[in-house]
């Protein structure tokens, strides 16, 4: 017999979602007044509603509202919503990766992008591989490899939306400097998420293992199909969708539908669903036919509904006080700055930038923001990392995002 949500389950589910959405919006708006990123408010609400605070001072209320361990129906429904949220977040992240911008910036974007990935990657990988004890991890060789690959990747990505916002606030967005930072961050995102999907499929979380070779082949084939052929089909279909179908329902339904279809495909071949969503995002977002208004609507829908649910959910499941480990936090913070600054500065100088501007680019790219939190959460769900490491990654994401703007301002020398 198929089990359904009972009346009481549905009430709890709706209460949980509405509480998360309303409180996240209120706290984020308050945080905005203090120039704090919205995601910080959303995470704070999660921490307050989760085991860190509400679970400690009023456990009955916490267990009633978020019965993640006591009511399997509600827990399953929430898990479905949170999974959908992360898929949607990766879809909009992909929509902002525009290959044309990377190609236009040419050598500087490529050398900066490569430098800002290779050095942090090997720094993270090396430390995790040779000193896993530093992170309190006990594991066999395969898991040590996967963990090391993950830490390297986690340290090499950047947060495109945060960087764009910082550049806008500093009035650097439309400058050549700004475009180099944006193009390099896009490059980081593209390579970082492709590689992370590969690591997730390696992590052994699925029952049906694929060999590494097959996984890489599937990722390349899927990416190539979507970006070469899929993109052409989307380019042809979008004008029709945007003019012949109801506006904006048509483009919204078709875009999100394609995102979920691609996500389902990659999940079915044991690569994580996020890869499908991310690539679908690139294919749609890079289309010349996608109207700005349509792009805005998709972003509004995802960032104002799914993003708060996802970021609040993090605090619901992780106790940030119990899992705070100063040593791990400091190690990850140092690694995050050292690798990124050395790599990106070197890459930017190789691409022709002067030292001060190269440093400013590096500090711009050091902002990890929400992308790091999404990456960390997926790794936590896949048992790649422990909760203390996840907490350290979240703290690193905030510290790097908050310091990025002032550090760019300190070093940048450009004509606006």
């Amino acid at each position, binding site marked *: 017999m198929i089990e359904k949500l009972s009346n009481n389950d549905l009430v709890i589910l709706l209460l949980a979602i509405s509480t998360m959405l309303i409180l996240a919006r209120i706290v984020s708006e308050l945080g905005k007044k203090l120039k704090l990123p919205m995601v910080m408010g959303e995470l704070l609400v999660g921490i307050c509603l989760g085991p860190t605070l509400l679970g400690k001072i009023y456990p009955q209320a916490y267990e009633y509202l978020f019965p993640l361990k006591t009511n399997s129906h509600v827990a399953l429904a929430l898990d479905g919503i949170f999974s959908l949220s992360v898929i949607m977040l990766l879809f909009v992240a992909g*929509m*902002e990766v525009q*290959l044309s911008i990377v190609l236009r910036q040419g050598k500087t974007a490529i050398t900066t992008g490569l430098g800002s990935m290779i050095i942090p990657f090997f720094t993270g990988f090396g430390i995790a591989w040779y000193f896993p004890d530093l992170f309190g991890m006990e594991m066999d060789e395969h898991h040590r490899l996967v963990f090391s690959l993950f830490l390297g990747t986690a340290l090499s990505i950047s947060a495109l939306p945060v960087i764009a916002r910082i550049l806008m606030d500093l009035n650097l967005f*439309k400058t050549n400097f700004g475009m180099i930072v944006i193009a390099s961050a896009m490059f980081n995102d593209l390579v970082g998420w492709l590689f992370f999907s590969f690591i997730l499929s390696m992590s052994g979380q699925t029952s049906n293992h694929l060999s590494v070779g097959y996984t890489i082949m599937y990722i390349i084939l899927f990416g190539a199909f979507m970006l070469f052929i899929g993109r052409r089909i989307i380019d042809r279909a979008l004008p029709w969708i945007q003019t012949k179908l109801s506006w904006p329902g048509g483009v919204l339904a078709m875009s999100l539908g394609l995102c979920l279809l691609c996500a389902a495909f990659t999940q079915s071949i044991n690569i994580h669903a996020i890869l499908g969503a991310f690539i679908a995002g690139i294919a749609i977002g890079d289309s010349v036919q996608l109207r700005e208004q349509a792009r*805005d609507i998709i972003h509004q829908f995802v960032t*104002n509904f799914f993003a708060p649910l996802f970021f609040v959910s993090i605090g619901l499941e992780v106790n940030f006080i119990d899992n705070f480990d100063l040593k791990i936090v400091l190690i990850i913070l140092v690694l995050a700055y050292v690798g990124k600054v050395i790599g990106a500065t070197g890459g930017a100088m190789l691409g022709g930038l002067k030292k001060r501007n190269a440093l400013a680019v590096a500090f711009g790219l050091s902002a990890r923001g929400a992308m790091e939190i999404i990456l960390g959460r997926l790794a936590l769900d896949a048992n790649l990392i422990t909760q203390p490491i996840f907490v350290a990654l979240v703290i690193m994401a905030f510290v790097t995002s908050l310091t990025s703007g002032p550090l760019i301002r300190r070093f940048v020398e450009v004509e606006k």
Partner: protein
Amino acid sequence: MDYNKLKRRASYPFETIGVAVAFSPRLEAILGEAKVLSESFGAQLLLMHIGERTRSKEAKLDEAFRKLGIDEKKTKVIWHEGNPVTTLLELCKLNIVDLLVVGAMQKENMLRYYLGSVARKISRKAKCSVLLLSQPKREGTRFKKIVVNGVENPKTIHTINTSVYFGKHLNSKQITVATETEQPVLAMSMTSESTAGEASKMRKEFTEEELNKVHDIVINVSEREGIEIAEKIIKGKPGFAIRQYAETKKSDLLVINSPDLKYGIIDRIFTHDMEYILEDLPCNVLMVHSRIS
């Protein structure tokens, strides 16, 4: 050959106009256009054919000269064998060609486009200005409406000046300097962090900034008397937006800067900037090589 003569040579006046002769069914139309251009600019005509010199080809050329009234004495014809693109470009350098006229299909089939047709390859590599004629006419095209890409680039002022020179000699009525504005990542970074008012203010500021930039360029255009220059901001991806604009406005000529980058097959697969125009020519295209580094 002293190639230094080419360096820093101004993009206009056009003293030597080269023509790529392919003996296609459009031969007479291309030669007709070349004749009108050379007469309008008072330029010497240089016809270049890369391929075997045969009697039938010579006869065809003589016939075309006779029909079109081209003065053979004032026209230099070069026959040369070799790779069409590199040989043609080498001949242009050798003869200090200021403008190379090439016939081009409006749209190539996909395989041919990716592999690269002669006309497209020339456009990407030429060290002189190139006029791609997608619909050449025997009697010469009337370039009434000209659209110029006003992209923020040191070359642009030279390109606009060349367009004005071109337009004046061919009795154009209007030149529109259109600047494309693209705001990548703006949607994502503003949707959750900004109010509707803030977002719209920011977009408005960006547009005004672009308009001021194009105005600053246009204000420095020399010898603009007798021709109307309009300024326009168009939203969209660089290359694609201006292609669409030129198409919608039924322009006779789209003028763009010569490429800054070396365009290769990867730029055709992940189409961007100039490749959007070469992929599907919206009208005749003039690519101005301002010869500044």
